[in-house]
């Protein structure tokens, strides 16, 4: 590759780089500083003069609701991811072979995915009201639905609505994985006379392991960071059982006005997602060779 390097116009990076530095990198560093000062509604206007608090905010965070929020967030994220995998794979397998009306089915599968989160949360919130349609339907089979949006059942409401909204992501990623199965592989297994189950588990599913694992990683990150769904479903402050990390960080900031404490909680949540994120970044091949490289 002894090609002549074209003129280097690195200045073109300036506008994008400046924006990302000013509104992502600087705030990120600022978040660390804010977590170390005693910042409330009185000191906010002149935050440069706010008293230094050391690690007090972190100590207070761990002494209050943060460990509970971490537990809820992690279990919610993992549970939602695990539950969406079978739906996603089944949907991908069912739409892989062409049949009349498949286009319509594929479009339908994307509906929960396409709808904005705040719309999904609003309509489910309405349907799950004590006098809403869900309880009306359950009453016809003599089940008392009770309260979905407060109390211990709210956790399962959050998980179920998240599953409803998120499984198409797994479906899309599994579908992309299926495209990579070579045609000869099917033909070879047909010649061997393999039945559908051995063919599926021994031939097709191994192809899906990579894409599905990647999808799980990304989905878990998305679930952990999801603020819109709990916020719109339950309102702020959220019931104790769905007080996930994004909610507790938000409420501590903009309702309790304990900004320093909230920044400390946010830093802890960053450290938590740094683990799966690190795995993802390591696995990602960044420098695929420019020309003729696979997409």
């Amino acid at each position, binding site marked *: 590759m002894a090609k002549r390097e074209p003129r280097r116009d690195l200045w073109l990076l300036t506008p994008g780089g400046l*924006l990302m530095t000013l509104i992502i990198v*600087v705030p990120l560093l*600022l978040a660390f500083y804010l977590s170390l000062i005693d910042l409330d509604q009185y000191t906010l206007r002149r935050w440069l003069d706010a008293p230094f608090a050391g690690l007090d905010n972190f100590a207070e965070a761990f002494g209050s609701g943060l460990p509970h929020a971490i537990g809820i967030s992690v279990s919610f994220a993992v549970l939602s991811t695990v539950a969406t995998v079978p739906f996603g794979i089944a949907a991908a397998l069912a*739409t892989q072979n062409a049949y009349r009306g498949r286009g319509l089915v594929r479009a339908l599968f994307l509906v929960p995915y396409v709808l904005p989160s705040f719309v999904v949360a609003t309509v489910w919130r309405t349907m799950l009201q004590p006098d809403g349609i869900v309880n009306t339907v359950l009453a016809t089979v003599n089940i008392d639905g009770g309260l979905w949006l407060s109390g211990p059942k709210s956790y399962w409401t959050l998980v179920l609505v998240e599953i409803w909204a998120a499984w198409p992501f797994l479906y*899309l990623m599994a579908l992309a994985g299926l495209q990579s199965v070579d045609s000869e592989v*099917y033909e070879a297994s047909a010649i061997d006379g393999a039945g559908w189950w051995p063919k599926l588990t021994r031939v097709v599913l191994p192809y899906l392991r990579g894409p599905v694992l990647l999808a799980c990683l990304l989905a878990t990150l998305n679930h952990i960071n999801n603020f819109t769904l709990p916020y719109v479903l339950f309102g702020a402050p959220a019931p104790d059982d769905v007080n996930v990390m994004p909610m507790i960080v938000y409420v501590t900031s903009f309702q309790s006005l304990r900004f320093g404490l909230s920044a400390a909680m946010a830093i802890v949540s960053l450290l938590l997602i740094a683990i799966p994120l690190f795995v993802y970044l390591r696995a990602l091949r960044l420098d695929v060779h420019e020309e003729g490289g696979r997409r």
Partner: protein
Amino acid sequence: MSASSEAHRLLPRPLLVAVTVILCAMVLVPTLYILLASFNTDLGVASGEFWPGSFSLDSYGRIWTTAGLATGLLNSMLVCALVAVASALLGTVTAYVLVRHTFTGRLTILRGLVGLQSIPGTLMLLPVFVLFSSAGNYLGVTVVGTRWGLFLAYLTFALPFSTWVMVTYLRGLPRELEEAGRMDGASTPRILARIIMPLSLPAIVVSGIFAFLLGWNDVLFASVLTRPSTRTAAVALSAFGATQEGGAVPVYSQVMAAALVSAAPVVLLYLVFQRYLVGGLTAGGVK
């Protein structure tokens, strides 16, 4: 031919039918109810009807005054359309430099582009809010509560993904396409505008639409960075859904209508650009 398609069949027919029916029902039943409820009356929905006693567009007429949806939709449209255009253009320029040149720190930037997408919004919100209000307190420039403050925030958060989409696309464009322009001594901005951008229109569309969706779907930043006159459709709808409960007659039909109207632009975008979007989605792995 039929033997070959038989070899490609993944699931036996009964299982295929069962899986398809279950998944379709899971999506279709709530969606159908939302649609039907929006064409019902508030009274009809409150009495627990699935199928409306009478169809009417009443709810679609009322939400403009009750939910304040017009302001919200207009603000969302303005901000997000601008974000889409700006983010796609900036993303293309940035990606071009990252793909065509090698320089120290390039891999760090590429890795950063992906990493930045996963930073929780709740971590960014407070420092961004502090910075934006400092612009008011220390410099006398009002940013919090304005549309362009929201625009700046969304543009910046959309940029890593927009750039990443363009990076993956531009990698596939052969260098030879630009050589002719280089020979004629055209400058890089000119080559970008005349050669690169027309050739990468599909990817530009994807990165623009995802930037649009990022803004349209956001509740977190909009709930803090807007005031009533600048609030977005997302904030207007969530507020409407939350405040209308517990009244004598719940306005569930209007909530459903308002929800569908807020989703309409997004659904429309997907319908028109479905082919591009699904590909871009799995490439970037982002919602």
